[in-house]
């Protein structure tokens, strides 16, 4: 049942991406507000899907929060992304990021359902994952990743200005772009920090060591350090929004490596 809901959500996200695209290229405010409603509907269904999956895991007898394997992490990543996008767009009264975020949310959902070998089945948890720290660790990390993804989208918007694709950034001023790039990266940074700390506490209980230099740990540290530089770039003379955008791009590459690339290196995080 839950996978059917997620399939529907996937298409709703694709549809709202198309709506956002039409709205920015035609400069019609009305379409953009329709796109917001469609995205909102997709987000609600997404939440319903997550709850359904949680309930279904209980019905199968080994109830766990749907945050425990690659499939579930992709679905939750998309969910966090749309959540953080919504919050930022409402607060800044600008939905110019929609045209960049919705396709990403769509791709994450599509990747989760069509990748061969990806199991969408609800499976019982191995002993290492049976911990209450799992929930707080995964939620904070993915909200952090979502913040960084938004900063990445804003860095793209920042660099597209004045190019042929400049029409994509009509709805947002350069100053607001820069400011939101900073605040979303800061949000990601705070959440990643909490994610690393909850992970450390969990590791302390599970492995007996709060830090083991496991590749995923190291890459989360590298990501953290890159955003340290990005968030300090305001205070370095001669560094402006452009340097910030460059670090938002580098940081995002680090996020991707932390999330995915590390699984190809040997380490303790074999279950993601």
């Amino acid at each position, binding site marked *: 049942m839950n996978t059917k809901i997620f399939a529907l959500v996937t298409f709703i996200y694709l549809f709202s991406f198309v709506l956002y695209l039409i709205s920015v290229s035609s400069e019609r405010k009305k379409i953009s507000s329709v796109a917001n409603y469609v995205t909102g509907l997709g987000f609600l269904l997404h939440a319903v899907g997550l709850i359904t999956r949680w309930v279904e895991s209980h019905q199968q007898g080994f109830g766990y929060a749907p945050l425990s394997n690659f499939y579930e992490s992709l679905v939750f990543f998309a969910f966090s992304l749309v959540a953080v996008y919504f919050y930022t767009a409402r607060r800044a009264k600008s939905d110019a990021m929609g045209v960049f975020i919705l396709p990403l949310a769509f791709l994450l959902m599509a990747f989760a359902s069509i990748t061969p070998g990806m199991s969408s089945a609800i499976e019982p948890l191995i002993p290492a994952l049976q911990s209450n720290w799992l929930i707080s660790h995964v939620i904070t990390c993915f909200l952090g990743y979502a913040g960084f993804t938004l900063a990445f989208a804003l860095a793209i918007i920042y660099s597209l200005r004045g190019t042929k694709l400049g029409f994509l950034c009509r709805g947002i001023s350069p100053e607001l772009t820069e400011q939101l790039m900073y*605040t979303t990266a*800061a949000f990601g940074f*705070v959440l990643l*920090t909490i994610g690393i700390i909850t992970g450390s506490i969990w590791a302390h209980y599970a492995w*007996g060591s709060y*830090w083991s230099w496991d590749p995923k740990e190291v890459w989360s540290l*590298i990501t953290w*350090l890159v955003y340290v*530089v990005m968030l300090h770039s305001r205070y370095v003379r001669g560094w402006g929004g452009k340097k910030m955008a460059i670090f938002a791009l580098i940081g995002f590459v680090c996020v991707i490596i932390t999330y995915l690339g590390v699984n190809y290196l040997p380490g303790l995080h074999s279950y993601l």
Partner: protein
Amino acid sequence: MDKKRVALRQVDVLVKFFSSTSLGIFLVLMLAGLSMVGTLVSPVALQAPEGFWGNLAYALNLHDIYHSFLFFVVALLFLVNLILCSLKRLPLAIANYRKKIDTANMGMPPMETVFVDGLSTEIANQRLAKVAKRFERQAGPSQQQAQLFAFDKGRISYLGVYIVHLAVAILTIGAVVSALWGISGQVKIAEGQEVSEVRLSNGTVHDLGFFVRCDKFTVDFYDDQRPKTYRSDVVFTKGNETLAAAIRVNHPAIFGDYSFYQASFGVEEGKAIFTIKDGKGLKKQLKMQEGDVVRFDDNLSITVVRVEANMMNAGPAVNMVLEPKGKHPQTLWLFQNIKEIARDNPGIIERFPAFNPQVLGFYSFDLLGLEDNFYTVLEMRNDPAIAIVAMGGLLLVAGLILVFYYSHRRVWITIEAVNAGISFAIAAKSNKDTIGMTREIELIKDIIRGKQ
């Protein structure tokens, strides 16, 4: 005198260099870069370095970069830079934090003017009192400026950065304390076995000062054969003090300064299950492992010396020493398949009396089988830095929240009676987060209009 001045200037230059933000950024990127190398260099490839680059990498300790001298030096420089940077800027932040509330609106033009028709001064004052509740401090109206209200909150945000830097310094120090004084190691304990020493990860043997006994190790599976639970039931004993604990993954046991974690497990040649009958018909079943000694009756004591799953390709066997009262000890090799062995090798029992299950005549032995014996592997830790690191983590989060989610917001409202109403001119200033400030002003306007 001159020399002294030159020396002072040199110190100045050094301090300036070490407290620069650019150096800080360079060092942070350096740490990131070294960490990156650490995850890419294969530790195995560097165990036997080849060629110039291999030897260079080995000399730089790249196979264990996080514990290398280079990494340590960069981290140390970073710590120095962080502390100097912070000390340099801290006085200004403290001054900002302590500054008296501004009653002059710094000549700023009002950002917004709200006119409320038919409002009395009394109600206007009530509404401003409501605005004041959103702030930490208020100044005015005063005699000189009877119409000016100044509000102020979030000064603590100036200190956030320094709390974060302090937290990072504490975490770095904690990591060093962990690395220097923390000990860890793995210990293998078979079911029924007791240990008091652990081989540490640096190779030395550490005396715990107490005993750990594993009574039972259990592994449970789900229906699809995935592991569900690993559990070691252990007992710690120190003098008269004992503590029984069940160690599972994610649920360590703590005894004194030491923590024990479920790390691994395995199966080794286990216990022998055999029966003994005496000539009077008394029969007993025993379960024994290597080293166990049992008194069967008043006249016979049994010591199990070896348990073999497949002795000389002839199947399970147990080697025991039998000590009948007042007689010489006798060795017995008890095979489970002794009947088949005797059939295939006629005369073997006569040639090797030790193979005879009735070697003592009065008693007869029968090996029923072997039972697997689990052993558990526990990770042992004693880390004196946990409290330091935990404090660093807490401070880090608290500081970051102050940095990013608190801002020093100042609002000045000048009221003026116009016709039958009152006009409110609002000016505002924030040290960061202009979006939040705009929202704050919207809220204040709502309060003034009586909508909140």
